[in-house]
């Protein structure tokens, strides 16, 4: 069964609903970070690097049959776990869906602080880059 963007996000919200303690929530994010398939080392090049003030993020994207696929990595594992969630939601979506995606699950599970533009982890820039990638694919 193929889930919509909304359903995938609701899925994550449900998964997180069982944790009422911050540390449990983060334990789960860290596990996700450990599981995330790494981007190929040779793809960790400067043009794929999104420099946060503290942690760094590498992002690569591919278009297959009108759909977008991402791989990514970070040197900080919590950042990596959150990237894992973002990728889970956005992978396989159409270019148009990605460009206009409303990523409501982030604030629903209490992680909005990680996506604030003043946060030092590069995630806000990563989301921006994902959307830019989609937009530029659209105009091609």
């Amino acid at each position: 069964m193929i889930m919509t963007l909304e359903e995938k996000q609701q899925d994550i919200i449900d998964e997180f609903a069982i944790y009422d303690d911050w540390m449990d929530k983060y334990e789960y994010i860290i596990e996700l970070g450990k599981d995330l398939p790494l981007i190929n080392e040779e793809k960790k090049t400067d043009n794929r690097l999104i420099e946060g003030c503290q942690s760094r993020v590498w992002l690569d994207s591919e278009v297959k049959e009108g759909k977008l696929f991402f791989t990514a990595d970070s040197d900080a594992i919590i950042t990596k776990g959150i990237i894992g969630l973002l990728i889970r939601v956005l992978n396989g979506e159409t270019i148009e869906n990605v460009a206009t995606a409303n990523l409501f699950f982030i604030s629903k599970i209490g992680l909005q602080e990680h996506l604030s533009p003043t946060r030092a982890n590069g995630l806000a820039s990563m989301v921006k880059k994902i959307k830019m990638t989609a937009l530029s694919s659209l105009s091609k």
Partner: protein
Amino acid sequence: MGFLIFVAAMIAKKTFNIEAIREDFPILHTSVNGRPLVYFDNGATSQKPKQVIEAIDNYYESENSNVHRGVHHLSQLATNKYEDARRTIQQYINAEHSEEIIFTKGTTDGLNMLAFSIGQTLEVGDEIIITEMEHHSNIVPWQMLCERSGCKLRVAPINSKGELKLDAFCSLLSDRTKVVSVTHISNTLGTINPIEEIIEASHRYGAVVIIDGAQSIQHMKIDVQTLDCDFYLFSGHKVFGPTGIGIVYGKKKIMEVLTPYQGGGDMIETVSFEKTTYNVLPYRFEAGTPNIAGAIALSRAIEYLNTLPLDEIEKYEKELQEYAQNELCKIDDVRIIGKASNKTSVVSFIVDGIHPFDIGTLLDKQGIAVRTGHHCTQPLMKIYGIPGTIRISLAFYNTKEEVDILINALKRSLQMLR
């Protein structure tokens, strides 16, 4: 009679009562993420005692007016309070004259002022010496000056413990050295620099010595006349006062001949389109309406410190730093960054294989405020070959129990991250 003297002595003796001190700081009784706050980010900014918060309220409730400008009652009151604040600070650091105390926005503002005003006196080929452990605010203004003026920036190296190599520093001194600007205490390493030696050696070459006191004023008694530094700077917000206010102390005989930094109201004697003449010290360096509430509240913070036994506090903070450092060392893979034999109040560390950002995030979720990153000392991080550290920076209201909470929270975080 004897009894009265005894009572007076009891009152005058300042006692270090940590519970009473903690009561004075309302924010220490709040919680973060459901845990009682443990505030270990004092190097970035200190918390404020209620006396300071009340001084700000009181100023805006019953004293607010512009200074040096009005004949009316409130303006006189605000002016008197503002000038009293200057004298309180003068006395605290034992400056000879009150006009040697300039109110600024903070240390960064003061350093930019000095780089400009002293810069006006420099020529191509003149040299400025700083150290490898400086905060960006004691690097960039000098670099900007060098670009403008053709002066040269020389950087004195540190050893692997994070101590200034004094010999190497001295060998940089020459007749070309016009300015030496060094931090008293490193905000990243906690190293206490031997500023007495630095000042003496630099003066032999006629250089002007600037001490960045942003991290020292809150930890030790400063006597600018004994030190004989030419300038000493600090930020109000790191010494239990408000943000947006700071101090440049500058020797009168040097300040008097420097070009003012900013032009505007208050800093002038007469203005005409043909020629403007400048006001006397300290006003010639305080253009525009100053941060009046900030100055008054900062002096309140200094008065608060005056009620505390500062010698005892200095010892206590050092013990706390050593305790934290020793306890951290017991954890596997912890590496202390900055092992100077003379250090205080700051412990920077990294954990091999784990990103500081992850540790900082998990400590935050356990109610503990630490700082992670480069601490505005990127060149220093480069020397150590690391992107950043986790930094604990202490104040006298911190306790051993809080250090224990940190150690346990760190162990829990590492278990999750490994």
